[in-house]
C-alpha cells in the first residue's frame, strides 16, 4: 500500500502528540492567527495575534479531539486561552 508521507503527522493511537504540539496544531488549523502558529512564543498574547473567542471554541474542540481529553467548565475562561503555555497547562491538567 502506498505510504502517505503526511501520515506520520496525523494523530493516531500509536503517536499521541504532546499537549503543546496539539495546541500549536489546533491554533494553526483553527486559530486564525495573523502569524504562523508554530513560531509563536509560548507566552505571547494570542488575542493580540488575532485569536477571537469564536475561534477559541474550535481550537478547544480540536485539542480535545487530538488529545482525547475534555476541558472542564472551570477552566473555560478567556485567560486560559491567552497563551500557548496556559492552554497547554489546561490541556495537560484535563488529561
Amino acid at each position, binding site marked *: 500500500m502506498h505510504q502517505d508521507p503526511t501520515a506520520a503527522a496525523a494523530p493516531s493511537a500509536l503517536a499521541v502528540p504532546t499537549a503543546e504540539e496539539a495546541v500549536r496544531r489546533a491554533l494553526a488549523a483553527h486559530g486564525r492567527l495573523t502569524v504562523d502558529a508554530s513560531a509563536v512564543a509560548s507566552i505571547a498574547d494570542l488575542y493580540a495575534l488575532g485569536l477571537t473567542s469564536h475561534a477559541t471554541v474550535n481550537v478547544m*474542540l*480540536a485539542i*480535545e479531539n487530538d488529545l482525547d481529553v475534555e476541558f472542564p467548565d472551570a477552566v473555560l475562561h*478567556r485567560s486560559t486561552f491567552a497563551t500557548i503555555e496556559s492552554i497547554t497547562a489546561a490541556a495537560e491538567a484535563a488529561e
Partner: protein
Amino acid sequence: MTAPVLAGSTETHPTDTTAAGTTASADRFAARAALVAEVAAQHADEVDRDARPPREAIGAMREHGLLAAAVPVALGGEGATLTELAAIATTLGRACAATAMVFAMHHGQAMALWRHGGVGLGVTAMTEAVLAGALVASSTTEKGIGGDARRSTCAIEVSSSGRIHLRKDAPVISYATEADAVFVTARRSPDAAPSDQRLVICLPEDTTLTQTSTWDTLGLRGTCSNGWVLEAVTHEDRVLRDDYATISARTVLPVSHVLWASVWTGIAAGAAERARQAVRKQARAAVGTTPPGALRLAELLVDLQSLADAVRHAAERFDAAAEDPSVLESTAYALAANALKINASERVVDIVTKAMRIVGIAGFAASGPTSVARHLRDAHGAAVMVSNDRLLQNDAALALMSGAIL
C-alpha cells in the same frame, strides 16, 4: 458555535472560575452545596431505580449545615436568604431531583418555625433541633379533601393539662421515615371550620405512622411520598403560634414555590448539560463545522436562562418583602407565586424534552452518561405535585381582583 462562557467572561473577572451554567451567587454555600451534590449524584440512579430515600445525600446536607442554613443569625444560624436557598436547590437538582426536593420541602416548613412559631418551648426546641441538623417533613394534604392544603378534616383535640391528640389520614407524606419531625396541618379544634387550621410539630416519639400506600411513581421516586395514617399524642406548646392561613400565605406557599421551581431549574440544567456534552462531542468530530444540534442547544439555553431568571427574580422578590405581610398577603403576590410554580413546571418538561432530542438516541436511552430519562420522568412530577389546574382555579378568583406584578 460560540460558548457563552468564553464570550461572557471577556470583560470581567479574568480569573473567575465559576463554571458555565452554575448559579452565580450564594458563594458562602456554593462549595458545600457542590459537595452534597457530588454525594447526591453518586446515588441518584440507585435512589431512582429503587425508589428509596437519598439517605447519603440527606446525611451530607445535615453534615454540611444545609438543613440548618436558613436559621436566623439571631438564633445562632447562618440566616440564608431565599435567594441563597434557591441557588442551593438548583445545584442539588442538577445532581438528584429527589435530594433537592427533600431540601426544598424541608425549608418550606422549617422557615415557619421562626417566622410564625412564637416562643413556646416546643417550638423553640424544634428550632434548635433544626439548627443541629434535624430534617422536617410535612403532612398538609388529607384524604377526602382532594389535595387542598388549606382545608383539613382532622382536628386538634385537647385533653387534660395541655396534652393534644390528632389523627390524620394522609395520602402522602414525603420522606416520613427519614424525618426528625413531621409538621401537620389540622383544624384548630373539633368544632372549627375546615379552613381554620394550625400547624403542629409531631416528633417521632410522639407519633405513630401506619403506612397505607406505596410511592411507586414515574419520577421523583426517591422522595418516598408514601401514604400514612399519622396519629400523634403531643403537647399544645408544639402548635405554631400563627394560624395556618397566615403561615401558608407569608411563608410556606411562596417559599415552597420558589424552591420547587429552583429544583426544576436544576433538573433542566442537568439535562441541558448532557445535551451540551453530546453536541460538543459532535463538534469535536468535525471542528469548524457547527453541528445542527448546536442551534437547538442555543435555543434551549434561551429557555433555560429565562427560567433561571424568573426563579431568581421571584426569590429576590420574596427576600425584599420577607418582613412585609402587606405585600406577602396581597392578591398580586399570591398570583405571582402561583405563576412561578405553573410556569416553571411547564418549562422544565419542555426544556428536558428538547435536551433529549438534542442528545438523540443516547438521551432516549434509559441509562448511560447522556441519558435524560430520569430528568424527563422527574420533570413530569412538577405539574402534578400540587396540580397546576388547582392553582389556576384558585387564581381564577384572584384574577378578578388583581393583575400581574410588572
